[in-house]
């Protein structure tokens, strides 16, 4: 019986060799080009803000997580993704607070990795948006005032408001479209030479980095595909109705945080549906909500709230789209 080829074990017999740390660190690596481009556009402020957000996330994970999941890199991803959604001039203490909140309230109180309902990075951003609305909507213009210049009073002391520095700030393309009905050239949007948060500027690059993850099967390509399809269809329809008021599909797809949200936030392995039909519904609902909030909502950008709202429906989607058990007559588990 000691011949190993005669031993029969329980399935699965083939493993992909993937583990949580491997997937997570691959995602971190795929974010590196986006971080680099953000640094190219916004100077030293960009890595500092992202580092502060990551430090907040990692410190909180280290302090309160009893399961020792620090090494798997999930807190690092949360921190970097949160940093990518922040404006370049945000004081570092606010970024740190956002990271700590995202991990603490967004993940650890639910029981740690794999238990959370909402995407921790987006929850951290939602908290910052509600707590510090002014600082969170001051958008520096990329490549203004020399690469080395700081894009805001990022070294403000904890609890102190940032002083107004002489930096060039401007409305985001979505803000200009919504409040001034002014379009931005598509090339600027695709390359990312517009003002906005660190990671929402270069749509093409995010598409490439996320595409790599989709090829590796670390994210379900159906989620971004359905988000893009839903946004494109609804936006094209509205654009056909009134081209002056409603921007076209290309603008909607490449402006704001849609690319980052669709590729990295919505596809979070924990907070997205486990079934493929569920992913289609999930993505379509996010896409629809994004257009609704952007066009009829009070805010210029709606990706964050869309994803958070639809996150809440994921357990329901998982139950609705449960596949039929092979060989059984009808739907099986309905509990």
């Amino acid at each position, binding site marked *: 019986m000691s011949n190993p080829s005669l031993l029969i074990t329980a399935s699965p017999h083939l493993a992909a060799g993937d583990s949580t740390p491997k997937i997570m660190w691959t995602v971190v690596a795929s974010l590196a080009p986006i971080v680099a481009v953000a640094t190219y556009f916004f100077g030293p402020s960009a890595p500092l803000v992202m580092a502060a957000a990551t430090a907040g996330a990692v410190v909180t994970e280290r302090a309160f997580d009893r399961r020792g999941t620090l090494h798997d890199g999930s807190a690092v991803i949360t921190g970097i993704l949160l940093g990518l959604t922040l404006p370049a001039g945000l*004081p570092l203490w*606010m970024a740190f607070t956002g990271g700590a909140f995202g991990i603490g*309230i967004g993940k650890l109180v639910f029981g740690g990795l794999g238990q959370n309902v909402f995407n921790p990075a987006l929850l951290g951003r939602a*908290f910052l948006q*509600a*707590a*510090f*609305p002014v*600082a969170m909507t001051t958008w520096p213009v990329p490549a203004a005032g020399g690469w080395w210049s700081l894009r805001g009073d990022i070294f*403000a002391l904890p*609890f*102190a*408001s*940032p002083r107004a520095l002489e930096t060039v700030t401007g409305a985001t393309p979505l803000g200009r479209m919504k409040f001034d009905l002014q379009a931005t050239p598509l090339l600027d949007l695709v390359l990312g030479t517009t003002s906005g948060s660190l990671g929402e500027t270069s749509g093409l690059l995010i598409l490439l980095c996320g595409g790599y993850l989709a090829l590796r099967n670390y994210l379900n390509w159906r989620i971004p595909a359905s988000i893009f399809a839903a946004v494109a269809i609804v936006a094209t329809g509205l654009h056909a109705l009134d081209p002056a008021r409603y921007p076209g599909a290309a603008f909607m797809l490449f402006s704001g945080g849609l690319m980052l949200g669709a590729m990295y936030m919505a596809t979070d392995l924990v907070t997205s549906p486990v079934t493929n039909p569920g992913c289609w519904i999930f993505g379509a609902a996010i896409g629809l909500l994004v257009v609704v909030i952007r066009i009829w909502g009070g805010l210029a950008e709606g990706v964050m709230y869309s994803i958070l709202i639809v996150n809440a429906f994921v357990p329901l989607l998982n139950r609705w789209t449960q596949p039929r058990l092979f060989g059984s007559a009808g739907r099986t588990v309905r509990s």
Partner: protein
Amino acid sequence: MSGEVSPADLHCGAHGASAGVGPRRAVPPGEDLVKGFWRENPVLVQLLGLCPTLAVTNSVANSAVMGIATFFVLVGSSLLVSASRRFIPNEVRITSYILIIATFVSIAEMALQALVPDIHKALGAFVALIVVNCIILGRQEAFAGRNPVGRSVLDAVGMGSGFMIAMLIMGSVREVLGSGTFLGVSLFGPGFEPWVIMVLPPGGFFTLAFVLLTVAWFKRRKALKAREAERHDVAVVERAA
């Protein structure tokens, strides 16, 4: 809001209060008063009256006025309920309690409207909603309806103070973080960045969660220490034997 006065809540209140305080057992009068401050605090331990605790604690002044109004209603109705407990038929006792409570709420509401009209406006419907605050109905059902007047008033004063303590903790945290002020006085100067979320409804939930977390942590530590001490005593006795 009306969901607050469910039988389950009343039961919970009765349970929390009457544990170990039977009507016949001799309890030192101080005990009736003190237990509401912390050990059986209506908000932090019994988790009653969370609606005003979440809704009106966005500033210290609002919290204090709400606490005083509730204190007045609680003491007044406990006094009256306890004094007339022999005349109230058991079948209609809840109705009678509510009527008595509503009387005092009306007095409190008119007094607030006359004395502090600004805060009355800020509190909105929540002054009138003291009627359905389950701390008050819970105390009538669990204590005042079956205990003599003196003890009932002491109990009401203790519970009312406990509610006020909880309101002031919530109000202080939220006003200091959310506006950088205490009772309207600026604490940190103009350089302070207010955490706007803390004076918004989510801030109420976050603050309450963190306060309850702290209370639970202290209680757990105390229980662990007591158990340690007990084990130590047992070990000493065994060694002596």
